[in-house]
């Protein structure tokens, strides 16, 4: 019978996952497998992901690739593994999965944190953070990683709460969305107009923050940082100087590796195991001493999206 591989992403609307799905579809086609895809209705929709796993197993999937929306899916993973299904976590770690292909989000935060510290050249940081929304692990990991990279008081990679050392003067939820990033930044500037570092959960939120800073005439004095590595919003905006630096991740690579693992399992029944870091690179147009980064030209070759 045809090999069936399932891919379950957190949501449908995030370019990161859309790209991941495209990559998986291409890889599956090449390998002669059928790809089923499903997504939660929104980030955190573990119930939707659980149902999707069950339905895919019912449809004959032997390998399921999943970007976990939360640990509530762990028991189900164990259940379907017992039925002979291989479960591979992509992007977000989840306990119990056979293998994990992911970027380390905490590390992604650390990279831009370190870059920001270097870029400030010893000036006292006045930080605003445009976070995701409450209770989201990726949001917490990037945020706390950023503070760790800057050398500020922070929480560890396991925490789902956001640290707020004294240097962080304003925190706003952006939902990873440009419009809300803009609103959040506007409000933060009202609170404190001395802000000189802006951490954003992703590149659209960073673009929104830039828009607010520009309207206030402060875009030149502030270091804006993001995470993702999209072509236009990320690398393009680094080129334009909209954001100073971004941490690039590789969704296509995760997807391709996941599908390959699925094909392998179908062929010889060998399960993947362990953690494979698909890597994260700091992209900056102005390299800083002591912080390893790639330039935008190199980044152009590896970025994703338009």
């Amino acid at each position, binding site marked *: 019978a045809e090999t069936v591989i399932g891919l379950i992403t957190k949501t449908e609307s995030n370019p990161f996952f859309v790209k991941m*799905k495209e990559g998986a579809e291409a890889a599956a086609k090449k390998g002669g497998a059928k*790809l089923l895809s499903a997504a939660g209705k929104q980030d955190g929709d*573990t*119930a939707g992901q659980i149902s999707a796993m*069950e339905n895919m197993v019912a449809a004959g999937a032997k390998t399921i690739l999943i970007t976990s*929306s939360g*640990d*509530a899916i762990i028991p*189900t993973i164990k259940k379907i593994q017992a039925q002979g299904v291989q479960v591979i976590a992509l992007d977000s770690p989840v*306990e119990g999965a056979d293998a994990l292909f992911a970027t380390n989000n905490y590390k992604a935060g650390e990279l831009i944190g370190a870059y920001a510290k270097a870029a400030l050249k010893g000036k006292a940081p006045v930080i605003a953070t445009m976070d995701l929304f409450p209770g989201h692990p990726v949001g917490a990991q990037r945020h706390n990683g950023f503070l760790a990279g800057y050398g500020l008081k922070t929480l560890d990679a396991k925490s789902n709460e956001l640290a707020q050392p004294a240097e962080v003067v304003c925190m706003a939820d952006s939902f990873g969305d440009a419009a809300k990033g803009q609103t959040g930044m506007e409000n933060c500037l009202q609170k404190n107009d001395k802000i000189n570092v802006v951490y954003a959960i992703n590149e659209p939120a960073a673009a929104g923050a830039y828009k607010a800073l520009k309207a206030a005439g402060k875009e030149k004095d502030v270091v804006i940082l993001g995470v993702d590595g999209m072509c236009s919003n990320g690398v393009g905006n680094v080129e334009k100087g909209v954001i100073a630096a971004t941490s690039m991740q590789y969704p296509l690579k995760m997807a391709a590796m996941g599908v390959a693992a699925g094909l392998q399992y179908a062929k010889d029944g060998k399960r993947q195991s362990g953690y494979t870091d698909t890597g994260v690179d700091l992209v900056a147009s102005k390299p800083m001493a002591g912080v390893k980064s790639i330039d935008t030209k190199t980044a152009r070759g590896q970025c994703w999206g338009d």
Partner: protein
Amino acid sequence: MNTLKAKLPPMGTLGPAIALVLACAFFSFQHENFLTLKNFSLILQQVMVVGTIAIGQTLIILTAGIDLSCGMVMALGSIVMTKFAADYGLSAPVAILCGIAATTLFGLLNGLLVTRVKLPPFIVTLGTLNIAFACTQLYSKAQTVTNIPDGMSLLGDTFDFGGARVAYGVVLMLALYVAMWVWLRDTAQGRHVYAVGNSPEATRLAGISTDKVLLGVYVLAGVFYGIASMLTVARTGAGDPNGGQTENLDAITAVVLGGTSLFGGRGIILGTLVGALIVGVFRNGLTLMGVSSVYQILVTGILVILAVATDQMSRKGGR
């Protein structure tokens, strides 16, 4: 003009049921695994949480209210029961009761605000939606609670029933539907729920304390959300602080798909079960068909409209 609906109780669920049967027939042709006992037992397990929430939601909508907080309150309940068990070492039944107490308290809060302060249910539950979400996040520190006693996942276990594996929780949900159906249809209190939704003024003038009926309904709904908390914990084996976010709309959708009027006073609770099943069947069938996830959303949108249109047609035909 919705007169027949009120007159012939069984008719009310007929329309949605036809839509459900049509959907099942369609998916059966699409994938050979669809029309299997195993698959149906799976679908039932998948709708058991939303289905239980939707019981409470139906009660509230029957009184011409709406509860936006249902999913979040359910999530809070699941966090309370799992953390009480994990942190304080309470036994499963005691911890579950504590969780149900928490959701019931929220139901009471909603009910008091609706009846005493006379605020619109939409606003009240929008407020408590946010409050319940914040409490959940703060209390759980946004961490999933996984180290729960075995007793808490009992209801997620299955038993064999004529070749199909049926979860105990599904049986509980079905029993609750039947019980509430009988209660609404055959008891004085149940009829008062309809009366309050149909004409609060007439009900008041008939000497019934509409506030008491409403308060009772909100509290009862809170209890059902607590039972849903218990079921979601049993199903997932964890307490998930991010749970319940999509359940709000899903539960209301199930109620409306099931033919209950958002204006209150008209509808049959068994329709809600059918509505919840329609949602579950769509999700399952489309995944089996291998429809890619964006197109699933597109098709779901179209099918929801078609399902209710079928209902509408079948009702016209019945005139």
